[in-house]
């Protein structure tokens, strides 16, 4: 690899701030062959940019502003229903915020003729923690696997050491986000659940939960861990969790917000084929129609943002 190749890889603007974590072998070979300007993957590229924009401005920022931030700022002042909506809402917010950013990065790169690795693959449909990490921030999880888990010995040193390695990897993964107990607990929950899952599978190989039950357990463990990830300190995290059973009026629980929180998860269940066909349909429309449709989306996104400005992407801080 030449110095120029290395510099281009480091400075390639779509992925520079917050991933996906691109490996040399994935990017540099693309610099070696000329990009073909007659065949830009604009169907997926434009879809990813538009989808990412809406995920960020409409879903993530609305959930944050209207329910997640108020509840995490003052857990004691909110009812159980509001707290639950904030917990599930944050799961939707962080997915739409972060995957929205990587979607836009990947889409921009596609318009320039480059392919970046996919970073999210329907994580909230996972029926186990292991599968969750197959679909969540995939380029970080493979980094953790190849540079932490495997050097620690992976699963080659017996079951006990495997559990320890899983735990250590996730604890360090948690600390990577910041030196705080909350991130450590977040990593601990994931490490513990990954190890527990593996233990159960080895101990009771014939035990099979129905898919819906496995999904429910997995999703709720992920959401529980997110509470610690979002809370500024442990007191707030436990304050939020302690408030789940509280009564009282719930003015923050509106049909629109519930729809956004549910939609953030449900959209992952849309079959891939649907998006592929939609992209093909879009590519076949006249250019002016395509432009007007995208312009209209920008207007909607700008209206959602309003005069308070766009909240920074969550992962910019890490």
């Amino acid at each position, binding site marked *: 690899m030449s110095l120029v190749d290395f510099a281009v890889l480091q400075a390639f603007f779509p992925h520079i701030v917050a991933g996906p974590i691109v490996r040399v072998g994935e990017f540099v070979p693309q610099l070696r062959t000329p990009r073909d300007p007659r065949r830009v993957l604009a169907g997926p590229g434009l879809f990813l940019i538009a989808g990412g924009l809406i995920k960020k401005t409409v879903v993530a920022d609305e959930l944050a502003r209207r329910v997640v931030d108020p509840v995490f700022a003052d857990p004691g002042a909110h009812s159980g229903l509001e707290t639950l909506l904030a917990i599930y809402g944050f799961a939707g917010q962080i997915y739409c915020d972060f995957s929205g950013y990587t979607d836009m990065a990947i889409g921009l790169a596609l318009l320039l003729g480059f*392919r970046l690795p996919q970073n999210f*693959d329907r994580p909230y449909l996972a029926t186990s923690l292991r599968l969750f990490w*197959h679909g969540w921030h995939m380029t970080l999880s493979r980094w953790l696997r190849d540079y932490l*888990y*495997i050097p620690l010995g992976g699963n080659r040193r017996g079951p006990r050491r495997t559990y320890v390695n899983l735990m250590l990897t996730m604890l360090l993964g948690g600390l990577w986000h910041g030196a705080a107990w909350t991130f450590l607990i977040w990593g601990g929950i994931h490490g513990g659940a990954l190890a527990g899952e593996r233990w159960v599978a080895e101990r009771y190989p014939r035990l099979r939960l129905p898919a819906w039950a496995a999904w429910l357990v997995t999703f709720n463990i992920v959401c529980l861990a997110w509470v610690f990830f979002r809370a500024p300190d442990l007191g707030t995290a436990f304050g939020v969790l302690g408030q789940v059973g509280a009564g009282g009026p719930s003015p923050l629980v509106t049909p629109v917000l519930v729809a956004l929180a549910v939609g953030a998860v449900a959209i992952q269940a849309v079959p891939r084929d649907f998006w592929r066909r939609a992209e093909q349909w879009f*590519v076949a429309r006249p250019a002016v129609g395509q*432009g007007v449709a*995208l312009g209209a989306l920008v207007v909607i996104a700008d*209206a959602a943002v309003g005069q308070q400005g766009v909240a920074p992407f969550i992962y910019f801080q890490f």
Partner: protein
Amino acid sequence: MDEPRDRHIDEREHRREQLSDHQPIGGQPNVHDPSHPGIGDPADPRLTMPAGRVFLIVLVALLTAAIFNSEAIVRAGEGMKPGTTRDVVLSVGRPLEAVTGFVGLHLPRKGFDMAFGQESKTASGTELETGSAAILRRKARREAKPVWRQPTPARPLEVLVTGDSEADLVGLRMADLDTDDLLDVETVARNGTALTNPGFFNWELNAEQEMTSRDPDAVVMLIGANDGFNVDVGGELFAPGTPEWETEFARRVAVVMEALTEKGERPVYWVPPPTARDETYNEIYRSQNRAVKRAAESVDGARYVDIFSTINDGEYSDQIEIDGRRVLGRQSDGIHFNREGAEVPARLVLQAMAEDYPALADGIPAQEQPNGRTTLGD
């Protein structure tokens, strides 16, 4: 003999671990795998188009957005600092707005604004734009002792720190300095806003909306750096630096102070700009400081916090003294504090607040002045 063989197996297993689909942590995203959503198969002509066409689509999209969004473009332009960018944005935005407004193309955007529950921040007929200077002739009541609820760690004071971009870092540093957990600081910076430009952002209206929705115990208002516009008094325009401008500015400050205190219900600590590197700005900021002092004397609960003459004796310097150390305290624009420097105005605000909330006095380091004075009790 054994050792190399072991290593060989190890490496094979290692490779298998990397490649297997059933690893406990993470998958192996493959950039060339067409089954990955969104990536697509480059050989599929139904997903590709020539680069020129993509360029055309993006151009049409931007044009569409500009036409339907012309009002927002003008609003954004009006909020910018005077300069070439502002001139370009407004020279494109204003004619576009005139045409689209006439045809009604601004209506879809208005509909979306309503759908997202965006409150308008402009209005006509507010007191901020036109009103009597009689408000400045009132005398604020002076309490012998603090009358507001005192903060405790169990029930901290809810403080809204707002204003223009200067509010951001000062709010942040106030929260940093609050080691006794007596404050619950919320910072809402409205970048680029000013009192002399209510057509872009009406602070009287915004103050009413914010006080209704947030109802804080106290407000810190840092504003003025963008206030270089002429003001219209009874149909006549006055430029900054004239006595008429200063009086009109004081009147506007008093109007917003009343909206924030809600007739003395909570204290408002109003912080006009500090010194600036550019002497033209300095003149305007000096005039603002006089105006805010005057306005605070006529509104119940309003306090003037001076960060102009109390920092470096009113002389601009990129460096500020904090606890005997000189640090680079200003940003390159010669107006804003940087993160480190913002500690100084944050201390000065907290010291002003400590006069109403004595419990705050314990935790705040006094801000020493170069001549040995401290701002406490000056």
